[in-house]
């Protein structure tokens, strides 16, 4: 009983990824030769404008598109499995809001502790995790999936009110940097930061694969999973931690990016037609990465004429898709 067709879907996606990466690299406003890409790695010359462009802009943006796409999709997948709700996601359930609130606190008040690279990830992670924990507690008191989503939206409004208050109190300079951040962009990461981001991301992926069995068991509900010997409480914490890790990481460096976390896991499930998380993890990574590469490539193409915030474009694509899901499942 092997799942041959699933492997083919994976292989197709794997072939499509380099193509999407290529499109993303080529969609920038300035044409850069392959040689420059090669040289920027192996014979880096800081006086060569193209090479600097590659190092400081193209590559960080390329990697962030992939990491943000994969990370948000994974964090959405975790939440959908954990809450047994296809409409859960870091955005609707207030995980982003939690991260945003703490980031706003740090960017707008300029607390020293939050300033380093680690600090930014840490801040977002704590915010995301706290919000996740809060939603978890609420979820256990609710029976209706819709009610949970409404609580998530209320939580989002609640935190954004605090963010507005912080904005009104902030100085012009910090307000500008926060507003830029909140539009969502893949352009804010520097080459030197890529290392730490990649390390955290890789650890998250490894952690995800260790949770394949618990996640597959959670699909039939917490009670049934517990009767199969799953230590529910610790699994719940681990899954929530990974959700916060991915959502926090992406939110810290790219700002809030809406709808990827809710749309891509559903798209992956529809495409793979399985609940086996071994495939869903890989599928979400690939589809999420490809989706954000293509979306960002589109933004880059238009950049000469108008600059669309990433968050706006993912919402334009994502919101109708979620409505489609609603019509399909909840009617």
């Amino acid at each position: 009983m092997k799942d041959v067709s699933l492997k083919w879907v994976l292989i197709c996606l794997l072939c499509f990824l380099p193509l999407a990466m290529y499109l993303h690299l080529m969609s920038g406003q300035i044409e850069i030769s392959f040689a420059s890409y090669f040289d920027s790695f192996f014979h880096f010359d800081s006086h060569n404008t193209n090479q600097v462009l590659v190092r400081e802009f193209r590559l960080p943006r390329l990697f962030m598109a992939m990491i943000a796409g994969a990370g948000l999709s994974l964090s959405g997948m975790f939440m959908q499995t954990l809450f047994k709700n296809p409409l859960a996601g870091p955005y609707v359930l207030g995980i982003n809001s939690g991260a945003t609130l703490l980031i706003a606190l740090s960017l707008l008040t300029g607390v020293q502790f939050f300033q380093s690279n680690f600090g930014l990830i840490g801040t977002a992670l704590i915010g995301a995790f706290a919000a996740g924990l809060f939603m978890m507690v609420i979820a256990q008191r609710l029976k209706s999936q819709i009610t949970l989503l409404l609580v998530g939206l209320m939580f989002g409004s609640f935190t954004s009110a605090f963010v507005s208050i912080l904005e009104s109190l902030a100085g012009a300079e910090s307000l500008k940097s926060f507003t830029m951040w909140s539009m969502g962009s893949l352009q804010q990461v520097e080459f030197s930061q890529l290392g730490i981001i990649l390390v955290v991301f890789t650890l998250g992926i490894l952690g995800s694969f260790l949770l394949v069995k618990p996640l597959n068991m959670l699909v039939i509900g917490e009670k049934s999973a517990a009767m199969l010997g799953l230590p529910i409480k610790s699994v719940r914490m681990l899954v929530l931690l990974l959700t916060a890790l991915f959502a926090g990481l992406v939110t810290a460096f790219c700002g809030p990016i809406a709808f990827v976390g809710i749309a891509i896991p559903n798209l992956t499930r529809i495409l793979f037609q399985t609940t086996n998380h071994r495939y869903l993890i890989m599928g979400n990574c690939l589809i999420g990465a490809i989706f954000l590469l293509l979306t960002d490539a589109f933004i880059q193409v238009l950049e000469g004429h108008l600059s669309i915030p990433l968050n706006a474009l993912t919402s334009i694509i994502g919101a109708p898709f979620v409505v489609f899901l609603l019509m399909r499942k909840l009617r």
Partner: protein
Amino acid sequence: MIHLTKLIIGHQSELLRLENTLLSSGNVYALIGRNGIGKSTFIQTVSGIQKALGGEILIESQSISELTPREMAETVSMVDTRFEGVEYLKVKDYLALGRAPFTDAFGRLTKKDWQTVEDVASDLGITHLLEKFTDQISDGERQLCSVGRAFVQETPVILLDEPTAFLDYINRKLLLELLVRLAREKNKCIVLSTHDLDLCLDQSIPFLLAANGEINLHTTLTKEAILLAMS
């Protein structure tokens, strides 16, 4: 085999108590009683989800309070009132989840595990459903799959919480007959809570009668006696 001694069950306050009761392997026991009397609580207490207020539960002469979650999963399996089905979860994968207590950390299934799944499926007559999605089969078929998962778990004790509640008459009858046959063939101790008095009497299975704050074991009972006790 389940051995219950001076068991007191309930959430905060006492709901039901049992004196020394022995439930042997190879039998199906029908737990009957009115709504809200504590049948579900009894099932959950024996399955280890709910703590007993007093007394002891021995399964295969081991106290369940001393078992780890994994050992518990190798001892008792449970079938819920209703399995709603999960989108894109195939019947074969659902059944295979019953092997979870026995598989490695990644949940990889061996040939033997798949063999167990296929054997159980053929015992229950659901082989033709294996490749279907659990949300695209009928309520009756789905309930059979739930029972199948419990059998795949290969536990000596199987508990079912009103497994026939959402089934039509024919499916109720078939499910009960199947349980009686499999309990005998596989030497399982099966307890199910139910309201299907007639069907249980037809099968002449022993009753666990919950009434007036007590559960008592009756090997034979007339319908009139049961109705009187439960009034």
